[in-house]
């Protein structure tokens, strides 16, 4: 009798205990940081340098407060001790007083006040060597699935990382390739919310090893073209800072949901990227 009672009681206790829907209450481990997006290109003007802030995960983000400005955040920014100016139109920093050369080290220094706290960060980067260049900048019209768009370029010696921004310029529901062989069941109503997901594609080549003037052929995958129409492909020969940022910044969550640190080259209170790159552009038009 005692055994019977024990089993019944135990079962009920365990069942009662092992139910419910626990709530995840995260402790706030927020520390203010300066988020930097800064690329410098040899023989190009220093511009579009963005200085931003990070945000607590609890609560909303006021998007107008993302950019750190000299006016509201007392931002001081320089590259190789040349001060940068703030452009009110683009909400970014620039200077016309600094010449960016190939294969040269540059140091960015930023100070700003975020949430009342004085922050400082600095980072170094070395620009790639001269040599990278796309050989044919306009590929003309390309018939979808009959010919693959192929980009030929000469490499920057010592640079193994090449990134491709593939942008469908006229992306819309009307020119989406619904009869594509990969996701043939996309519906127009679903597309409107996910237009940018298909419009902007990105790919990369890692650890490429070619000598100066050797030509590399990169074939754009069918998974990177979802619309008929004009495309702009920006090819970057990026240094190690850019490579590590592209590979790790957006890839901090592991398959079990846990997080790991990205690889960024900032000292002090900075996160983001300060990288040297050479960029070139290719155009083509994808037709039926």
């Amino acid at each position, binding site marked *: 009798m005692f055994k019977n009672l024990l089993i019944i009681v135990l079962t009920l206790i365990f069942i009662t205990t092992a139910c419910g829907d626990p709530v995840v209450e995260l402790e706030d481990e927020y520390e203010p940081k300066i988020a930097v997006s800064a690329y410098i290109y040899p023989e190009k003007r220093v511009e579009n340098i963005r200085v931003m802030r990070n945000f607590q995960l609890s609560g909303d983000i006021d998007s*107008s407060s993302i950019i750190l400005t000299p006016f509201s955040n007392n931002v001081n920014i320089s590259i190789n001790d040349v001060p940068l100016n703030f452009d009110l139109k683009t909400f970014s920093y620039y200077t016309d007083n600094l010449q960016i050369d190939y294969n040269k080290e540059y140091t960015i220094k930023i100070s700003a006040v975020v949430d009342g706290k004085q922050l400082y960060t600095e980072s170094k980067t070395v620009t790639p060597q001269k040599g990278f260049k796309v050989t044919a900048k306009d590929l003309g019209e390309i018939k979808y699935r009959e010919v693959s768009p192929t980009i030929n370029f000469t490499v920057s010696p010592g640079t193994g990382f090449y990134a491709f921004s593939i942008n469908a310029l006229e992306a819309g529901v009307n020119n989406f390739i619904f009869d594509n062989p990969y996701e043939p069941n996309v519906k127009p109503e679903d597309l409107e919310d996910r237009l940018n997901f298909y419009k902007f594609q990105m790919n990369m080549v890692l650890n490429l090893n070619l000598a100066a003037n050797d030509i590399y052929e990169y074939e754009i995958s069918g*998974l990177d073209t979802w619309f008929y129409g004009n495309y702009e492909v920006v090819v970057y020969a990026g240094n190690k800072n850019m490579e590590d940022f592209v590979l790790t910044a957006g890839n901090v969550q592991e398959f079990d949901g846990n997080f790991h640190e990205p690889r960024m080259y900032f000292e002090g209170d900075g996160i983001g990227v300060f990288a040297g790159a050479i960029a070139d552009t290719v155009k083509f038009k994808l037709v039926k």
Partner: protein
Amino acid sequence: MYFRILIFTTIFSFSLFAQTFSYSGTVLEKSTGEALIGANVYLDELNFGASTNISGYFVIPNIPKGNYTLIVSYVGFKTEEVKIYVQKDCQNCITIELSDEAVQTGEVVVSADSVRTIDKLFAKSVSKIDLTPRQLNQIPQAVESDLLRSLQTLPGITSLSDFSSALYVRGGTPDQNLYLVDGTDVYNPEHAFGIFSTFNTQAIKKVEMSKGGFGAEYGGRLSSVLDVTNLDGNRKEFVGNFNLSLLSASTTLQMPVGSIGSISGSFRRTYFDQTIAKWIDDIPQYYFYDGNLKGYFDLDKSNKLTFSVFNSRDDLDFKLDPDAEESLSFLYNWGNLTGSLNWKHIFSTKLFASFWATASRFNSNFDFDAVEFTEHNKLTDYAAKGALEYYYSKNLNIKFGLEQKILHLVLKQDANTGKVDVDVRRQHTAGYITTDWMPSERLTLQFGLRGNLFNTNDYQFDLAPRFTAKYRLTDNSNLKFAAGRYFQYLNRIPRLFFSSIWISADENIKPSSSDHFILGYQQEIGAVYEFEVEAYYKTYKDIYQYNQLLGSDVEASGYDENGNPIYSTSKGVFTRGDGHSYGIEFLLRKDVGALTGWVSYSLSKTEHKFDGINQNKYYTPRHDRTHIVNAVLNTNLTELFSGSRDSESNWIFSMNFVYASGQPITTPGSAYYINPLPAWDNIPVSGGEGIPGYKLYPSDINTFRLPDYMRMDISITWENNFDSWSISPYLQIFNIGNRGNVWFVNYNREFNSGNIEQKIDKTNMLPILPSIGVKVNF
């Protein structure tokens, strides 16, 4: 003077030995003819004896000439007494068959004649747990019984999630567990991306799990050994069973082969690709199967031969839109193939030998046509092993052996922009010696030493000492201690979706090592209850985990004609680290009677320190669970309520409860916006939704803990016995409380009038999962 005494005593000792004899034999299960492992055999008049080994073989040395009563007992079996006359060495001269009548009737007799619980505990190795097939099959599980999931109910063994059958033993990671099936190493024993294990519980004869401090006969892994022995086959009659669950159908058949042996075979296959997938488009074309065949042959009194073959396969043919002529698709298949040949030979009454030739292969193939990516992953392990047991005297046994392994590891990946081409061969030679010395009736000491010679591009030689002491504190309590050093030369790269890859020690990866220190206390309570407490401390040196920054760190070993990289070494693949685990485990277990099961509690802590992670400071890994409570209960309701087992119809109730502290996780301390590429100028300066530029920045590693994990599973089986067959339909309910155990946390955001609303929600593990099935025995 001392010298003379020494000579005298030595001569006297030898003269004493010269007047004694050894007596050996075999203990079998009466109904099946299967060998009984660990049966207690002793001489009543001399009050000493031996235990049977894995072949059911026993040797009692140092018996003076005379008449004796040989008593053979095994828990759950009827004790047998045999009168013997010893006048000379007698090699395997008796076969004793024990009847499992006690289990059949439910009347478990615990008398002075049968083996005492405390003796059984004393004979057991430190940190070792045995499970019978009956126990394995009674523990309620998700959909159907699973060996590895059943082991997760034991103290010191935990899982990462409901979706994983992988074992984390006392802080160790799954790659630190050695899986042996009939003496053969099995790599990646996983079905369905790790949700289920490849071991068919219907085909298992015995499972031994060593959670640490294991003897010198085992090596090559840091944390644990899971030694699975499959059914040899019924030597008396043709028997079989058939099991149908919502997941799979399986059968096990056993039959005698003349009078010399037996054969058994099992096969299991999932069937939803042939049923549900025919009607529901979203179910991918996926199935798995596994099967094994084992034969046992008594060549003569001194020679036994066993062969065992095991094969498992998972096959996935995925098509995003099954109805479309063309759609994103890939093919993926993986599986194990193992085989072993085992020859057991009795050289003399005192020398027993076992020789193995084994082969094990794991391979996987992936073909993703849309991006022109293929992968072929293969690991083959050929081994020859010899293990000898020498029964020198009643107080001293010596075990020694040699093992030679040839490993071949292949990983080929082919993509447009690079290749992986790893093809390495390694040799692992190991030798060991272990002495079991009983200096007094109360004390047993085991000294062991294992030598490993591993051929990387250089030779690596390691010595691994092992030590165990067992002491009978009182008539019903034991004290045990074990310590040892363990080495591991293979590391596993766990991957999302894809099966794990194994990589061997080389110029970039040092052999991993671990030291174990275990102190245990055992007590018999009320004749049938086992109470055990074990405290352990374990170190890890040069352990490796997958480098999360692999893409950034991996270095090419060469280049093809187009300048694309070819990766053929392990450089940059792993991150090196050290660590330690410590804890204490309490186990109260009852194996006999109408109500069986166990309750356990473990308190543990594991810390790792990996190069370049967490500023090189110690942190708690994801599998660390501070507190774990397990309760497993099996009972015959019919017997419980009516007082006796019904010979025709019984209701069996089982439950499994687990409570575990929440897993440590890293939280993103903050979010920020930044362009993935400079050309994607999406920063929402003036609001509005851009392309994904929202990024999370993690805080310190694993400092936050998820809510506590709790789960209760039950099963009810209706056992119906007929003359020559039985049928048992069952209902299992996994997570009957439908608790929302958190798997991981999601971070989402929505754009709303210039504001970005951030939302935190969670993804839960398995909800309540009822399933039904039926088992038929004939």
